[in-house]
């Protein structure tokens, strides 16, 4: 049976709150946590296959041109080397999120330095790696590939331009205004687990173990790349060691492993080196943004301008969606927004941790801080005065809106001082200490999802979908939703993820996983409850299930009577997205110290207050927020991709030189979850959580740096050299 629900309107029934098991929302530890910390949860490269060969990708050392020849003979004589694979089906980039089709193939055409062009396969990894390095390749290089996004003509990204009223006039007439240009550098996802795949064929049937976020799309991407049918592909990714956008689409190693395994008629494993993960998966584009804000004497916005320039390779549809939340976060009748893409030959730009708001919000929120200073209004108050009643561009209502509560509750919990904010008022030894704040916003998304929920005759439940858990807590929240609905403790609910033999989930990405798959599970459980209610002789609404007992009478085992009961939950977002603007909202507060000699900035403490609908698990939700705040600190102070100006190659391509924050960089962090129910967001009233924690946080730190030392920076990350250069005398 299928329990299908297409959401065309709000779901006010809010059934989860009426259940009896009492596990929903609880701060339960991850159900797969023990397996992970004891090393018994295998990751992609850790599966064993008999007679497995090892492949290593060979990457280009030119920026643009063609591979004219690869001297395979030079390495085929090396010990253990089995093959040098050059196949026009091999992919040269990772697929963009939700592409559902193969990315650019034909690896002999090179469009960025570091692009995969071949695969060397050998008996051992070491042999393959050595041979890959020894391979003699000749190129026909095309000189003069554009590398600097600001030095080329850019094109407008369609559907992003907004012109409402007359911004120039509003700026000219404004009581107060700000017109600033802010730059952000590129980011890497930097997931711990490198991209890896093991391909195994049985006849024409392919099984691929991989580290991927969205098997529901990846299966189509892989089949398309290989020129085979989806039915002949099985993808498995039960455990994924972080994705952060970099595993949304299939990447080069997966397709190469499948081709090699077929050609050699034995299983092939391809694991990317850390350098390859950095150099040939996805970068977040650098951005060049102009913010124009105009307000009246009371600080009410009369004009709002946000123009951004981002970059990508020619032919890539993705453009860092910098303006995503700018379209609706604040009011202002006169609006002008635009997004432009420069075509350059750096590696592919794609989704990296909160694409769009991760860099757009920090820029906007620095500009807002400057406007608050110009207008002489407390920055919290300025934001409170500019929360629009409805989406200012589309005139839609918000599904729910907790920005004001987050600002107020966050300010109180942080101890925000709403008095005058002059820089350099607090000093401790060599350090200036300051505070700053920013709003948080991240659009809420949901996606079609299917999951099979079965009640087994022994009274336990089994949940099956190809949905992934990329470290976010999917296993646990599914066990909680199903446990709550069916009256089972979490340890009686088995969850199987990451296998395309199971129904298609929504994939993990865009923070939509929990709300989407959770709603599908909710639908399946709702249908199961109906059947159980009939068997008890009551209505679904009257059915009370707790600890495997129905209405204090028969047990589930008795009701099942030796037979399994199963439902396919199918959730589909409907037309509701046309009627509402749905977003997570929040507020960040930071206390930062800046060394007056060296310009080093350190975060003493940070507080994030977030409203994102129902909290499904207070512990995993908080962990997501902590992760987001950590990314905020990275974006503010340390993370920056550096590209060679001559050939465009990514220079700092490992975790030693790409500076994610370390434990010592993270001061005291507090998370305040402002609970709400959003009946529009999803049938379980939950919104996305994963990315909100980094959507604006970097600006709270930037604004605190200004408050601490008087250096108003317009360039993220705010490294000591940039802070020193901006310090007033």
């Amino acid at each position: 049976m299928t329990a299908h629900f297409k959401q065309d309107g709000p779901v006010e029934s809010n059934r989860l709150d009426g259940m009896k098991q009492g596990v929903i929302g609880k701060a339960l530890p991850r159900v797969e946590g023990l397996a992970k910390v004891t090393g018994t949860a295998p990751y992609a490269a850790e599966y064993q296959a008999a007679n497995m060969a090892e492949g290593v990708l060979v990457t280009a050392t030119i920026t643009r041109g063609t591979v004219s020849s690869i001297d395979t003979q030079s390495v085929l004589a090396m010990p253990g080397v089995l093959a040098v694979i050059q196949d026009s089906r091999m992919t040269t980039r990772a697929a963009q999120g939700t592409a559902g089709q193969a990315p650019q193939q034909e690896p002999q055409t090179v469009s960025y330095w570091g692009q995969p062009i071949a695969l060397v396969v050998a008996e051992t990894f070491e042999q393959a790696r050595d041979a890959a390095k020894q391979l003699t390749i000749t190129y026909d290089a095309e000189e003069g590939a554009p590398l600097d996004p600001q030095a080329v003509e850019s094109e407008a990204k369609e559907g992003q331009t907004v012109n409402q009223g007359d911004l120039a006039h509003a700026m000219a007439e404004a009581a107060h205004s700000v017109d600033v240009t802010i730059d952000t550098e590129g980011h890497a996802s930097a997931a711990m687990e490198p991209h890896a795949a093991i391909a195994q064929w049985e006849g024409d049937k392919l099984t691929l173990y991989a580290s991927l976020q969205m098997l529901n799309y990846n299966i189509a991407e892989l089949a398309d790349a290989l020129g085979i049918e989806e039915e002949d592909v099985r993808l498995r990714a039960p455990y994924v060691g972080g994705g952060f956008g970099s595993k949304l689409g299939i990447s080069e190693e997966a397709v190469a492993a499948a081709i090699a395994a077929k050609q050699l008629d034995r299983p092939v494993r391809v694991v990317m080196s850390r350098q390859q993960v950095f150099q040939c998966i996805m970068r977040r584009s650098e951005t060049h943004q102009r913010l124009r804000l105009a307000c009246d004497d009371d600080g009410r916005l009369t004009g709002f301008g946000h123009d951004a320039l981002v970059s990508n390779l020619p032919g890539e549809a993705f453009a860092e969606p910098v303006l995503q939340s700018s379209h609706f976060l604040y009011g202002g009748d006169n609006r002008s927004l635009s997004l432009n893409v420069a075509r350059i030959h750096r590696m592919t730009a794609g989704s990296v941790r909160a694409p769009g708001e991760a860099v757009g919000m920090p820029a906007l929120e620095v500009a807002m801080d400057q406007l608050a200073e110009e207008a002489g209004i407390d920055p919290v108050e300025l934001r409170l005065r500019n929360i629009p009643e409805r989406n200012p561009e589309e005139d839609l209502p918000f599904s729910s809106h907790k920005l004001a509560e987050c600002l107020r509750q966050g300010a109180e919990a942080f101890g925000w001082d709403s008095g005058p904010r002059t820089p350099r008022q607090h000093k401790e030894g060599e350090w200036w200490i300051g505070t700053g704040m920013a709003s948080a916003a991240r659009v809420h998304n949901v996606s079609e999802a299917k999951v099979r929920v079965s009640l087994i005759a022994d009274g336990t439940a089994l949940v099956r979908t190809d949905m992934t858990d990329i470290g976010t807590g999917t296993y646990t929240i599914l066990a909680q939703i199903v446990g709550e609905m069916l009256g089972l403790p979490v340890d009686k609910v088995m969850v199987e993820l990451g296998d395309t033999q199971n129904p298609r989930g929504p994939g993990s990405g865009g923070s939509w996983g929990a709300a989407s798959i959770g709603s599908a599970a909710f639908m399946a459980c709702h249908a199961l409850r109906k059947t159980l209610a009939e068997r008890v002789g009551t209505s679904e609404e009257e059915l009370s299930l707790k600890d495997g007992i129905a209405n204090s009478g028969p047990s589930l085992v008795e009701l099942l009577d030796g037979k399994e009961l199963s439902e396919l939950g199918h959730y589909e977002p409907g037309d509701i997205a046309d009627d509402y603007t749905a977003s997570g909202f929040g507020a960040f507060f930071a206390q930062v110290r800046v060394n007056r000699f060296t310009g080093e900035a350190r975060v003493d403490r940070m507080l994030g207050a977030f409203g994102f609908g129902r909290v499904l698990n207070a512990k995993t939700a908080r962990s997501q927020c902590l992760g987001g705040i950590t990314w905020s600190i990275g974006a503010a102070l340390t993370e920056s991709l550096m590209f060679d100006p001559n050939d465009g190659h990514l220079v700092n391509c490992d975790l030693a030189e790409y500076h994610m924050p370390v434990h010592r960089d993270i001061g005291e962090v507090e998370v305040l979850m402002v609970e709400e129910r959003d009946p529009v967001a999803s049938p379980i009233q939950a919104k996305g959580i994963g990315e909100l924690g980094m959507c604006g946080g970097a600006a709270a730190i930037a604004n605190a740096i200004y408050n601490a030392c008087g250096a108003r920076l317009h360039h993220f990350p705010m490294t000591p050299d940039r802070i020193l250069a901006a310090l007033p005398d």
Partner: protein
Amino acid sequence: MKPFQYTRPESLVHAAQLSQDTEALAIAGGTNLLDLMKLQVETPDRLVDINRLGLGEITENTDGTLRIGALVTNTAAANHPRIRADYPVLARAILAGATQQLRNKATTGGNLCQRTRCYYFTNIDQPCNKREPGSGCGAIEGVARLHAVLGTSTECIATYPGDMAVAMSALDAAVHILAEDESERTVPVRDFHCLPGDTPWRDNVLEPGEIITAVTLPPPVQGKQIYRKVRERSSYAFALTSVAAIIAMEGDRIARADLAFGGLAHKPWHDPRLSTLLVGKLPSAALFDEAGDLLLEDAQGFGENDFKIPLARRTLAAVLAEATETEI
């Protein structure tokens, strides 16, 4: 990784003899060497494993000096009571480097020999005169954020990346070296590392067949010891600049000023003129500025690392102010 032979010699002399082969490399903790081998930056035919050959002791000599065996781990050295008490600049410098896990494996001798983290040196598909003589320097016209501003050459602008040796340079420690013919020599740490000149492949004065056996610290001296490392990330990052300082006062005046700098050059940078300038003077902001002028008078930036010049000046001033308790 290129296939290699692995040898575990029975004695130090045997190890030194095996190391005569220019295609052989000694391995101790391997925290740097193994990474470079995986990247095929280092491609030795033979690894000579010198672990298990003693050299893991810290011994107090009767003349007040302290001998640190070449195989003493960074963790052991930083936690040694004598080093903590008498040479805090060294303990702090070691703890400012790498991570706890790396320090548990890294050794004293290996740390002295660690190679630059220049992005072009570690990428074999890019030009680098240090890795491949004559291939050019990718950093000079490329990304030079980490790079040197003092003592550079047209061939190479790489920095020596370490912290420990910077403190040892300030302390004027000595490196003991054993040769394959059983002869021994002692080189001041200040002379152990080379400037790139026209031989950028040469990091230090070790010849084939030579092995570091120990580092000796001179008898403890009076004064305040400071190690100050500047970086955007507060751990597991190489220095943008660092200062090791031993500063003693007599009354109002500076009586001793031993200074060394990291992150600025191809070696821990020691400029004896700074001591001459500072000793006997009353500390002041003007004096610290003068010291900065002297230190950096020949400094040259390469675009992205221009900031190191003002940063080094400011960091030096901060350290001198702290050491002399001067308000600036």
